[in-house]
């Protein structure tokens, strides 16, 4: 009996031991527990994963102490040079290893390759990236084709080998050469290039050499911290008849002091400098750019593949423009971009000329011969002609009618619920100067009590008088009417076709401008706009009048 108990105890004990052993054995086995929510590495982690290709850059990060912040979360774009790229760079600067390089140089190098945003190749353009790199310069991109193979080139220095590698804190593009910051300011860049010897002398004589020789961070004038110079090479100037700087000076220097802002040589140089860092891609993205000459712009356009500046139609005459050279242009400087003009250009002295603008002569309707001058057509917000900016909810109607100039007019419903509160039109090119603005309309009341009072503004500047599409013109002699701000504009004159003077405007730049009708009071559909006239203040305001075919009739 006792033996039995002992046996039983032994048996239980053995079992217990076995269970304990089993538990210990189980406990020893490591249970894989995932502590992280994602196994995506950050930039530093990615470099650690690929020591074969990126150990050198990893080493640089270690020296500069940037490994920490590139290992933490954030949104970066890194252009990552391979070991081969860094070795080639070392060879170029005559060092044997990255440890030999000055730490500040390395810090600058890392910052030059880093951007504070995530940029995939889909957002690359022909020009600069949308954000500055952390060094404070713009990087440029371009696809280039070499022997039938296309690569994306960064800063004209390196090809992207592998793109769009997504890591935890941004995106990596692997590049085959180290990117190096621009060393020279615009002034130095132009001076160092023998192509521009005459232009350099002009820069120095006018004092713009100094303007172009300031780093953006040190420039007290933030507007001028980034600039673009459209330089003219010696050969261009020679072709234009200026074999030397003296010849150029002789032609333009009218006051004898090129430093004087009113001196023509000063103006000539200032007209070649634009605000902002503008690569060709930026130049073609906008139709005009301000120059350092106050209120003077250059216009730009892309025709086929050619970038043209100042290629405009003035008063019905086409003035051929100047081509910007792609091969010599788009050169980055520390404070901007250098472009190269293939022709001589300068500020043109233009006298203001009147613009008799029939608002219905726009391509969207003129390309529809079955409608143009024949039948009405409604433009909805979805297919608004490109020169109109209409916030909705109402669209505009193209309408035909007798007496109207060119036999047509634009009906612009305005004013409050169900109708647009305002509408904007892009004007034709207007030369800078002082103009009287006349709104030419057919008086029409949508209902007995309807009214529609509008304030007219140009480029945001309100004009002096309001106008009302439902107001009938007072009658009297031409002079009496003009004194009150009214005139006939149709030929033969017709009392219901009124032209009202809404004010005088000082147009500051020779450019396309925006005229806006903002309804102040009343609401109706039948706002029948026919023409808008910009007539220089010193010219005859009453004639010409226009017949239904659009022909002018003078007194």
């Amino acid at each position: 009996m006792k033996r039995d108990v002992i046996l039983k105890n032994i048996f239980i004990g053995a079992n217990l031991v076995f269970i304990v052993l089993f538990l210990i054995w189980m406990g020893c086995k490591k249970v894989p527990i995932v502590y992280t929510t994602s196994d995506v590495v950050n930039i530093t982690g990615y470099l650690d994963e690929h020591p074969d290709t990126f150990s050198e850059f990893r080493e640089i990060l270690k020296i500069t102490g940037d490994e920490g912040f590139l290992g933490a979360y954030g949104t970066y774009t890194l252009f990552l040079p391979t070991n081969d790229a860094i070795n080639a760079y070392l060879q170029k600067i005559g060092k044997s290893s990255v440890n030999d390089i000055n730490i500040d140089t390395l810090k600058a190098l890392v910052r030059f390759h880093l951007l504070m945003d995530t940029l995939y190749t889909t957002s690359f353009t022909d020009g600069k990236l949308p954000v500055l790199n952390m060094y404070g310069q713009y990087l440029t991109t371009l696809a280039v084709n070499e022997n039938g193979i296309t690569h994306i080139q960064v800063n004209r220095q390196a090809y992207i080998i592998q793109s769009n590698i997504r890591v935890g804190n941004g995106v990596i593009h692997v590049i085959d050469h180290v990117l190096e910051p621009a060393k020279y300011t615009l002034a130095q860049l132009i001076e160092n290039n023998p192509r521009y010897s005459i232009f350099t002398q002009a820069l120095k004589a006018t004092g713009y050499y100094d303007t172009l020789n300031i780093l953006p961070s040190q420039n007290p004038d933030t507007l001028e911290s980034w600039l673009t110079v459209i330089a003219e090479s010696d050969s261009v100037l020679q072709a234009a008849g200026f074999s030397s700087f003296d010849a150029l000076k002789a032609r333009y220097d009218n006051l004898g002091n090129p430093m004087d802002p009113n001196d023509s040589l000063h103006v000539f140089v200032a007209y070649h400098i634009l605000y902002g860092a503008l690569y060709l891609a930026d130049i073609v993205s906008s139709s005009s750019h301000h120059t350092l000459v106050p209120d003077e712009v250059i216009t730009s356009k892309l025709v086929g593949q050619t970038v043209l500046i100042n290629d405009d139609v003035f008063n019905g005459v086409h003035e051929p423009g100047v081509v910007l050279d792609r091969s010599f242009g788009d050169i980055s400087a520390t404070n901007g971009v250098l472009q190269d003009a293939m022709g001589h250009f300068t500020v043109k002295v233009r006298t203001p000329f009147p613009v008799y603008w029939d608002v219905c002569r726009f391509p969207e309707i003129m390309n529809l011969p079955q409608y143009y001058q024949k039948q009405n057509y409604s433009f909805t917000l979805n297919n608004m002609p490109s020169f109109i900016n209409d916030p909705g909810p109402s669209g505009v109607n193209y309408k035909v009618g007798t007496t109207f100039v060119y036999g047509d007019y634009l009906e612009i419903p305005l004013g409050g619920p169900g109708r647009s509160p305002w509408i904007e039109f892009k004007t034709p090119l207007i030369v800078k100067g002082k103009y009287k603005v006349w709104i030419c309309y057919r008086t029409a009341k949508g209902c007995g009590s309807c009214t529609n009072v509008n304030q007219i503004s140009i480029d945001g500047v309100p004009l002096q008088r309001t106008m009302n599409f439902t107001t009938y013109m007072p009658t009297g002699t031409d002079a009496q009417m003009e004194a009150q701000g009214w005139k006939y504009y149709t030929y033969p004159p017709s009392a219901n076709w009124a032209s009202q003077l809404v004010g005088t405007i000082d147009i500051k730049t020779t450019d396309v401008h925006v005229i806006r009708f903002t309804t102040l009071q009343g609401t109706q559909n039948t706002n029948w706009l026919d023409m808008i006239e910009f007539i220089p203040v010193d010219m005859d305001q009453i004639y010409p009048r226009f017949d239904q075919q659009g022909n002018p009739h003078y007194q």
Partner: protein
Amino acid sequence: MKHILFILLLFILIAGFTSCKKWLDVKPQDGIIRNNYWKTKEQLQAAVIGIYASLLDNSLVQDLFVWGELRGDMVVSTQFTSNDEINIMQDNILPSNSYTDWSPIYRTINYCNTVIDFGPSVLQNDPTLTEDQLNAYLAEAYAIRGLMYFYLLRTFGEVPLQLKATSSDSLIQRIPKSTQQEVYNQVMNDLHIAQIYAPYTYGDRNEDKGRITRYTVFAIEADTYLWMDQYDSCIAMCDSIINSQRFGLVDGTNQAEWFNTLYYQGNSVESIFEFQFDQQKLNPFYNLLISGTRHFVAAPTVMDEVFGIDMTDPNNKDIRGDGGSVNAIDGTIWKYAGATSGSTMIMRTSDQSYAHWFVYRYADILLMKAEALAWVGRGQEALDLINMIRTRAHALDYTAESPDPNSPEDISTYILDERAREFAYEGKRWFDILRICKRNNYELINLLLNAVTKNVPGYLQQTVMNKYKDVRSHYLPINQNELLVDPNLKQNPFYQ
């Protein structure tokens, strides 16, 4: 007692036996399994019709439109265009782009493979099925498989050739890409089989235009030969269709009638093969091209530069332009959006969006033949054919060109322009540009570069142009998901 026991036992046995059978039956209750299918010729026919049904899949037709038009110069985006679509228009095509997903095409290919693999077994089960009938059904499957691989060849270049039905998980194959030449050979193999057995007619106009006839096969073959610059074979195929006297151009005297017959109703005498959308199966174009949130409209240059405008006489117009392919006023792509044409233009409503997808028309045959003729020294005949198309369409003198009959390049350029007018928005533009420009080692690549840069924003022009200068970029990348599931696939070189 013993009897009762015996009967009881028997009853239990019977009950048990029958119930057991049901209990062990694991066949699906709501479907039919392969072992029970492929028994009758009706089932075979249903499977073949199933292939056609798969062609009406929304994403397939949308893919064909996007692949064929977006890289051309005739559509532009709206504010509702998706990022993937804009990226294709601006040649920023990454393997993550959803339009690089080729699964809608391979789905149809798998339906064809299934019919080709299992169809012949019906012959043993259904004595009423004749060998000829079987072959005719198989010919349809072969032809569609050929057509699908031809689309893949033109879009991706190199693709894996899946020729066996994937009817169970164990049969999923991981196959590498075949070269363009191999894909082409496979397309030709399929088409040659189809050409022998496909019927000339099904005895019904709608079936003749909606199913593969021998003329459809000729048309696909002509297109494929032309793609591979086999001009004599292309001409022979075109002649087989032309000489049959079964097809003709729809009269264009009255634009409204012409539009109604050819595009609104579809299945006209001019048609060779169309995807048969109808009220039950609408096409995806209402969202894409018609509604207020449409993704694409005609490029603003289309009326000016492609069709031309007679400023003095509004009645003198190319019927394919305003009211044919587009609505000149707001750029609506009228071919799929129009319910009427001519003097009153009414748009299709959402439940009317069943315009067919036009794969081949007789006009296509004439212009394909013209293109082949130009390259075999029969330029004048080519010009005559082009003029035939132009006369029907009342093309404006403004768009007439007078190329040297002895210059195949000049005639090809003219044909490319004419094809832009004739097949506007029929999913052919990019393929036409690529075919004509790639000939003779990309002799005419400038035409392609002009076309692709026409509608891109100025700040991207140089990048887009330089990308297209790399001819490897003319084929789409393989979708990243395909690369993940099939390690044997290698990304196309431009996108590596």
